[in-house]
């Protein structure tokens, strides 16, 4: 499951989905189910860990928007090799670490994980060239 780039992309998609569920349940605890089910016409925002999860979710989505095309380029060009696999694995591990590091406010680790994921993505683009 961790030995091909497409599976890693699928796993990352599921991880983002799980992040979304965590964020939604945290927000639900703070703002109440009634507000979430309503049309949210007056904007209310969560705070603390739920707000961090919301920011982590948006960051994960933007990371995915960069990661997915890199994998697609490599797939289309038949460019998968051990380097691209390693970069994809580093990306997945880094992004998995990123969410709890953000949620628990671990300064340094979050930025380190973000950088690892970002550079792994950049390397994938270079491999795609």
């Amino acid at each position, binding site marked *: 499951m961790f030995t091909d780039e497409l599976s890693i*992309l*699928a796993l990352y998609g599921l991880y983002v989905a799980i992040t979304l569920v965590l964020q939604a349940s945290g927000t639900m605890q703070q703002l109440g189910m009634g507000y979430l*089910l309503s049309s949210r016409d007056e904007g209310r925002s969560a705070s603390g860990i739920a707000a961090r999860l919301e920011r982590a979710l948006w960051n994960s989505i933007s990371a995915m928007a960069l990661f997915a095309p890199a994998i697609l380029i490599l*797939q289309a060009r038949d460019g998968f090799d051990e380097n691209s696999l390693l970069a994809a694995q580093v990306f997945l591990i880094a992004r998995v670490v990123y969410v709890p590091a953000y949620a628990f406010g671990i300064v340094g680790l979050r930025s380190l994980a973000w950088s690892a994921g970002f550079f792994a993505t950049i390397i994938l683009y270079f491999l795609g060239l």
Partner: protein
Amino acid sequence: MSPELTVLALAALLQMGQYVLMSVPANMELGTRATLGPRDPAPGQPPLAERVSPRTGRLIRALDNHFEALILFTIAVVVVTLSGASSGFTAAMAWLYLAARVAYVPAYALGLSPWRSLVWLVGFAATALMLLAALV
């Protein structure tokens, strides 16, 4: 073209339709002077997106929500298609996703609670099942 890719193209068209649905009333309410401008925050004024009517605000949030849903769905379609995991099940899930996302827009605009959330959940679950189908 596989059924999943057909649905992906239709979902992207839905997204463009949602843009139009949102931007026409937003431009009418805010005036093109505001929307064509650089949208700098005016002192004492809330951001542009918060100065629209409740109905238009709902359409804006429905559009933003589909961005999130669509990026996950795109991943699911791509992974299913490229890994050769496409089946009758994944095609059905793709169509279910599209139906849910189409229903989501009026459900939000009309404030149908809790139907909007249920419809959202259907689209989300269909996407997750496609991702899982690609892995097993």
